[in-house]
């Protein structure tokens, strides 16, 4: 399914039982939920996996209760926060520790950055596929020039300049679509 389909359109299709749309919706928000759990709340992988599955189970069960399809992102953010906090509370009931107390406060700067990062990833959907691929592989997947070159059949020596050109396209895409975002921000809310 094309990435140019909006999240709100995907929600509407999911509500009609479109399984392909559900798969696309999960794909669209999988990094977001993962980042909130691991960066915002600093959960380790094992806990983050449980949180990830629980969040998407709740999204699937409660999609009909979403008042506006446009609100899917803050709604998922809110659900993820609640699941994270519930898990922290359950953990701190089992063993009280300074670490659990410390983790109970999410890193709000990290969560604000994650929101902004989602905007950037959405904007990447408007770039040519080769740009999306190269930027994602280098910055989000931490792949080397050599790995990228082999995967995309490009000379490794051209990767740096391609990345630079793609960043310029991405910046143009972002500046053409919305006001400049704040560099740090407050809470995610519905």
């Amino acid at each position, binding site marked *: 399914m094309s990435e140019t389909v909006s999240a709100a359109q995907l929600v509407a299709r999911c509500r009609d*039982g479109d*399984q392909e749309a*559900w*798969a696309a919706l*999960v*794909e669209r928000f*999988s*990094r*977001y*939920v*993962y*980042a909130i759990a691991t*960066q915002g709340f600093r959960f380790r*992988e094992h806990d983050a*996996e449980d949180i*990830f*599955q629980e969040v*998407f*189970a709740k999204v*699937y069960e409660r999609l009909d209760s979403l008042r506006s399809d446009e609100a899917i992102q803050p709604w998922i953010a809110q659900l993820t926060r609640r699941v994270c906090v519930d898990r922290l509370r359950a953990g701190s009931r089992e063993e009280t520790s300074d670490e659990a107390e410390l983790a109970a406060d999410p890193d709000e700067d990290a969560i604000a*950055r*994650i929101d*902004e*990062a*989602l905007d*950037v*990833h959405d904007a*990447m959907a408007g770039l040519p596929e080769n740009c999306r691929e190269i*930027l*994602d592989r280098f*910055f*989000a*997947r*931490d792949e080397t020039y050599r790995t990228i070159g082999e995967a995309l059949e490009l000379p490794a020596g051209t990767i740096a300049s391609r990345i*630079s050109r793609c*960043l310029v396209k*991405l*910046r143009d895409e*972002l*500046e053409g679509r919305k006001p*400049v*975002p704040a*560099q740090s921000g407050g809470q995610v809310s519905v």
Partner: protein
Amino acid sequence: MSAFNEDRLAELIGALPPAPEAWVRAAQELPVARSQFDGIVARAEADAEFRRALIADLEATLAQEGYEPERPLLDALRRRFADS
């Protein structure tokens, strides 16, 4: 200077690494798991022996009955039969 300089863009792209593929796949299969869930619960309500077998060893019973016990299905069934 633009707020979207190269360093900032690089940081923001890197702030969303991919979730593990297996997690994503499991979540994408939720609709199938839910459909199987409804069938299994209906059968467990009608067949006491099947219900007992599920409670005794969920994964083995499902595998024996030809289901592929993926995580979302297992989690949902464990929650459903937790009070049994």
